[in-house]
């Protein structure tokens, strides 16, 4: 994986495959405390105790077509590479929370990457899922939900190419603006 938004996309697809109807992605960047962390929370079917013990084993998967389960292992590895922390909590039939926290200025911390593209990829084929996105950057915050978008569309389908292309541009604009640093002390946001 080249950037963190690919991990976020990957973990979120696990949620979709777990049959979630609600998906929350939260990113928090705190430059003062040198932290970049993200949380993916779903209300999917959850992971039972037996599978939980093997969830970070790359040679374990519950999927029929695959022989390896690399997603979570790759994320944990990316976290450990930059002295971060990785947590996963799950309750069968209630949902799963994956949280990854990174030392923000660690030399091995991958850039956040194309988060707008990741969100739009998630929304494109999944009309039955409510997505909530919240991104905190120091004191500033940006929130987005498919619910408010749907309301604004007044019945017109969100899963229309022109709407999704608009959404991608909108999210990219807002997130870039959010992450713009006016205080040069902290350098550029990567």
């Amino acid at each position: 994986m080249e950037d963190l938004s690919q991990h976020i996309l990957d973990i979120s697809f696990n949620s979709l495959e777990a049959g979630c109807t609600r998906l929350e992605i939260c990113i928090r960047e705190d430059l003062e405390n040198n932290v970049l962390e993200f949380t993916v929370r779903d209300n999917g079917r959850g992971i039972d105790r037996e599978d939980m013990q093997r969830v970070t084993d790359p040679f374990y998967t519950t999927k029929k077509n695959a022989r390896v389960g690399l997603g979570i292992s790759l994320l944990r590895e990316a976290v450990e590479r930059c002295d971060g922390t990785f947590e996963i909590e799950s309750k069968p039939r209630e949902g799963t929370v994956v949280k990854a926290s990174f030392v923000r200025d660690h030399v091995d911390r991958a850039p956040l990457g194309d988060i707008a593209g990741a969100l739009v990829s998630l929304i494109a084929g999944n009309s039955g899922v409510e997505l909530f996105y919240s991104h905190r950057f120091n004191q500033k915050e940006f929130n987005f939900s498919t619910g408010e978008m749907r309301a604004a569309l007044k019945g017109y389908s969100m899963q229309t190419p022109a709407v999704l292309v608009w959404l991608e541009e909108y999210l990219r604009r807002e997130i870039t603006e959010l992450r713009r640093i006016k205080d040069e002390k902290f350098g550029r946001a990567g």
Partner: protein
Amino acid sequence: MKSLAELDKLRETLQREMKARDKEHDISIAVSMGTCGIAAGAREVVKVLLNELKEQGLAHVALTQTSCVGSCKHEPLLEIKRGNEKVIYVNVDQERAKEIVRRHLVQGEVIKEWTDS
């Protein structure tokens, strides 16, 4: 949200432009989005597909996703279904994705050399 006004305008335009496009309803594109697909660039492929579908005015082609289909070395991979016809394209980069929309979806030509068979 200031941009909602912008979105509303877009919706009105789209609704005005909406024509009878029934024949598009049975076309779907499924992009493989397992860990392997994502690492190989599936997200970029989705973005190009959306852009090209928009450009070509194919508003009703269903873009969906599948998980790893066990063919990781051929990622990014996508499957196009039109009625009973099913075509799998392998190693789809951004250029190919654009061409697939133009040639397969618009002109109805299967680009054999990019398929899995």
